[in-house]
């Protein structure tokens, strides 16, 4: 009995009409997750920079959180790629032997640069706190205190100078890093768009607008996720403090600051409008020029993927939250609902680009339908299935929980420099 032959992509691809024999949905859910997570990283960083660089004071609260959250999101941007590779043990090769005509070859370099910027910015922002902790824990008894102190000692990297001069330098360094970080964050994500936009063989992807569309929607999703997580955590903490009923603490509770939320919402709406305008321009341009590929693109957009594109992405993911956010008398609950819809809308946009781009054959004479593996029965159907995607989504929250233990981004008494 010969071993069963597994052709990569065959398990989740359903072909219709004429499709070339070797065509399958090779880029599946993890490649949807990749630009989605990268976008969240970039967006979170841009939000934090609005305070650090442009001095948007109202955003101070959420900016600290966004910065640390973008660090938690960072490793997760690379995770989908690792889960997608057929040879994951060779994942370091793009760094060792980069072939620079390929857009992917730059990933390691851009990603590392960006990681260093985020890490050093956080270090400069929280160095004063690290030093304070080392001193505070000095004579505390117990092994766990000693261990924690050890971690903080490592985190200070031996820089204990907290004089006014030193802190001023810290602040300046953080601002400069945040400023450099903006173009790097945009580049990190813009080039994810370039990876798709430069594939000339793919009629849907091939567009110079792709990187710009990706950046805009990245900022939208990043702001939305930071706002959502921020609101949920703040409200959760407020809820627990109320339950404990400590009158002293209860009086300090402000919940998620409405001012912060209002300001962040305005930025969110601005970027959302830019993203939708560009996507519409792309769509109208394709229809108007009606190149050879338009027939099949039209049948995919207005036919097979109509619900995904026009109902789920544009209506439910863009229009509905837009209305929810601009209508007067906005409550926190309505904002949270709108933010969730925005996040869903951006996810659907990634889905419609990645999966939609493979929904038709290169022969323009047939279609491919993607059936996401739900219950995994092999490593491959786990990695490139629903549970693989959920693992990727869950990871940043776990990472944030750990990082936040040492870098308390949500405590108002710790604002760093």
């Amino acid at each position, binding site marked *: 009995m010969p071993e069963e*032959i597994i052709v*990569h992509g065959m398990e989740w691809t359903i072909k219709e009409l004429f499709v070339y*024999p070797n065509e399958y949905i090779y*880029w599946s859910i993890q490649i949807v997750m990749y630009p989605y997570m990268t976008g969240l990283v970039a967006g979170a960083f841009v939000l934090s920079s609005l305070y650090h660089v442009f001095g948007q004071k109202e955003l101070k609260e959420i900016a600290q959180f966004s910065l640390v959250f973008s660090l938690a999101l960072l490793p997760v941007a690379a995770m989908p790629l690792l889960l997608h590779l057929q040879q994951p043990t060779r994942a370091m090769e793009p760094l060792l032997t980069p072939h620079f*005509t390929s*857009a992917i070859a730059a990933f390691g370099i851009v990603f590392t640069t960006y990681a260093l910027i985020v890490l050093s910015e956080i270090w400069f922002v929280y160095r004063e706190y690290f030093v304070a902790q080392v001193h505070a824990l000095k004579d505390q008894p117990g092994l766990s205190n000693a261990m924690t102190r050890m971690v903080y000692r490592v985190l200070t990297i031996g820089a204990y100078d907290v004089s006014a001069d030193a802190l001023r330098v810290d602040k300046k360094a953080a601002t400069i890093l945040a400023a450099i970080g903006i173009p790097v964050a945009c580049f990190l994500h813009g080039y994810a768009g370039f990876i798709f936009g430069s594939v*000339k063989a793919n009629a849907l992807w091939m567009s110079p607008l792709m990187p710009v569309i990706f950046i805009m929607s990245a900022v939208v999703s990043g702001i939305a996720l930071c706002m959502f997580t921020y609101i949920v955590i703040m409200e959760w903490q407020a809820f627990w403090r109320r339950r404990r009923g400590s009158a002293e603490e209860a009086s300090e509770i402000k919940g998620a600051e409405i001012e912060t939320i209002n300001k962040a919402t305005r930025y969110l709406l601005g970027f959302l409008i830019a993203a939708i305008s560009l996507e519409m321009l792309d769509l109208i341009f394709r229809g108007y020029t009606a190149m050879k590929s338009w027939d099949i693109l039209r049948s995919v957009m207005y036919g097979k993927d109509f619900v995904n594109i026009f109902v789920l992405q544009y209506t439910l993911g863009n229009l509905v939250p837009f209305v929810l956010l601009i209508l007067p008398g906005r409550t926190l609950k309505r904002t949270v609902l709108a933010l969730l819809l925005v996040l869903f809308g951006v996810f659907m946009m990634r889905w419609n680009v990645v999966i939609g781009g493979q929904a038709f054959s290169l022969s323009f004479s047939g279609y491919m339908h993607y059936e996401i593996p739900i219950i995994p029965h092999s490593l491959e159907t786990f990695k490139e299935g629903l549970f693989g995607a959920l693992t990727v989504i869950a990871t940043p929250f776990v990472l944030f929980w750990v990082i936040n233990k040492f870098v308390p981004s949500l405590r108002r008494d710790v604002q760093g420099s």
Partner: protein
Amino acid sequence: MTCSRRDFLKEAVGGTLASALPLSAFVFITTDEAKAAIEDSKVRWAFLVDTTKCVGCGLCVKACKTENEIPYDAAVTRTWVERYVITKDGETHIDSPMGGRDGYTTDLIRDEEIDPEEIDKAFFVPKLCNQCDNPACVQVCPVGATYQTNDGIVLVDRDWCIGCGYCIMACPYGVRFFHPEHKVADKCNFCYHRISKGMQPACVECCSFGARRIANLRDPDDPVTKIITTERVAVLKDEYGTKPHVFYIGLDANVR
């Protein structure tokens, strides 16, 4: 001699980096190899498909799968044969079950019966890698695992491919796939192991009708080159600018 902590760290990092550069990063080549790499090759491989001669027997697909060890029953293949049936209502019916491996022995196209009276024209089109002069797959490979030899053939290094699938996405012809066993990108290379030893590719050798032939474009006396240069031949999808090197006789406007 004094050495500050800063200097010590500087030197240490520099030293570590230098010693981390492994000897294997250098490749030692013989003078002959160096000459061959710099000089223009006397060979530029190309392929000629005469669609008017193809009968859709599928022997080429069988031979290719066997010769190149592509699992026989896997639904991926380095070469395939498409059947086109154009009916009087202007519809184009195309199929290629298992890449045409088992030959076209039935009138059914995707379980659809077509009345022979309704057929305007019908023909077969063999497909394989176009060994492009400007290959999109080579351009997008992030690690250089797929590369072009100086005689024009695009090859895949199975020990270096990371399996990202970017080359598969970049190829407008859909000739690339993941090898079911090696889990790396795979494609036709005109049977490079054979042609570089003076033999014919497996599909050419087994084609009883002369529908598939290989040419060396740099040899003006090559009979196949003569056909390509003096007769009317066409290529597939030249709008992508990849400069494909599989030439077709009798290519129809309906061919995708």
